[in-house]
């Protein structure tokens, strides 16, 4: 069979769908467990539903961001592989880079005449082995991290540990934000500042309108993006 036929074959669709099934099933199991436990810690059903709604609205914008690279992946690796890899760990750019690097091991290149079915096989292994890294580390470390935090809480002032974790989280996002600002040109700065300002405005000045709080991040993002585009 020819490369184009195999990479879009029904068999590969089925083979690729297992990951999507696991991803969705995992979230269904976790959200059911969370709703059940919510009652025990005194969270109302309404709080949970509002949180769910807010997260879903927030997710819309960032879910669109990889669609452009998705179209690129579709063209080179076929629809089933692009579908699977955009829904699992590894950003679109990472998957593309890894697929290309793996193909290069056998002397081929994505989108070149020498991208044969063997090169496609190498690309599949490349992406799988790369994604394996994160999953294994999460598997080995997550429950140990939970234990470590418990231990820290016992050993030190829990107030300090909570503040320290907040500091770590803020530090992480300060890094991510700085990376988007330093040396990136003024539209990026506009997008970040306008979006941050909108977010603060909604959560402070419009605090009295709970309905506005749920889509706050989605709205802020769009305002930031559009203002940056308009004056770029």
């Amino acid at each position, binding site marked *: 069979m020819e490369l184009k036929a195999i990479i879009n074959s029904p068999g590969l669709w089925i083979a690729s769908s297992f990951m999507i099934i696991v991803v969705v099933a995992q979230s269904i199991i*976790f959200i059911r467990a969370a709703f059940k436990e*919510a009652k025990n*810690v005194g969270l109302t059903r309404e709080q949970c539903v509002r*949180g769910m709604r807010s997260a879903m609205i927030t997710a819309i914008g960032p879910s669109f961001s990889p669609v452009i690279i998705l179209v690129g992946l579709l063209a080179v690796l076929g629809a089933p592989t692009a579908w699977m890899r955009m829904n*699992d760990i590894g950003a679109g750019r990472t998957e593309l880079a890894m697929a290309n690097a793996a193909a290069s091991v056998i002397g081929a290149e994505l989108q070149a005449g020498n991208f044969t079915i063997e090169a496609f096989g190498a690309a599949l292994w490349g992406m799988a082995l790369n994604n394996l890294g994160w999953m294994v580390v999460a598997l080995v470390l997550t429950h140990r991290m939970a234990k470590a935090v418990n231990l820290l809480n016992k050993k030190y002032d829990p107030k300090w540990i909570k503040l320290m974790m907040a500091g*770590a989280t803020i530090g992480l996002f300060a890094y991510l934000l700085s990376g988007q600002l330093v040396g*990136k040109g003024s539209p990026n700065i506009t997008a970040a500042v306008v979006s941050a300002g909108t977010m603060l405005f909604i959560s402070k000045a419009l605090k009295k309108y709970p309905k506005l709080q749920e889509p706050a991040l989605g709205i802020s993002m769009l305002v930031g993006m559009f203002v940056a*585009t308009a004056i770029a």
Partner: protein
Amino acid sequence: MSNNSSREVSFSDNMVKIGIITVCLAIVANFIPALYLWLVHGIIPDFSTILSIWSLAFVTFGVGWIVQPITYYSIMGVSGSYIGWVAGSVADLRAPCATMAQKVAGVEAGTPEGDIMSTIGVTSSVFVSVTIITIFTFIGAYTIPLLPEFIKSSFAYILPAVFGAVYAEMSSKNLEIGAGTIACGLILVYLLPKLGVSSIYMTLFVIAAGMLVARVVYTMKKKKEQDN
């Protein structure tokens, strides 16, 4: 009280159990297309090639495999980590959704209530992102070119906009830490590459700066309490 804490333990044990089983299943699913190509079409790179591919992945992304699940733990928590490192998009999608779910429910990160709301936030984001990616897998190639140019150009600013808004939301609860840390972040991200520090280590420096600022704030607050 003892009853309460034993229940918390069993909930978190339950989360770990679900997490371990589902991540193991994801690891299997991760290799099914490659195995399919081998079993059905007889195509598989020879063992030494697979080994070279793995070393290439390890050299390029190995530090990220180890550092990222640790550095994101403070925001993702137990269940969020198990989901995030399978479903991906941790920084730009899962973490913002966890933050928003906690915000509208009025709970704090790092508490049992916060963990439950972040689990709800992260899982909800999975349902949305899988739906959108699936729709675009089928119609993306046809619809993307039809989008107005203004919308397409604005896609370039999704990341600064998301991170800006998330940062504002996080900092509004810890104003001093937020202001101090972004100042450190900007300076470090500007200076460190000039000193030849690679980006993965840069993350650690800025996180350390955030923790240091938190320590200063904590010490000052404690001193104030004692003085009063």
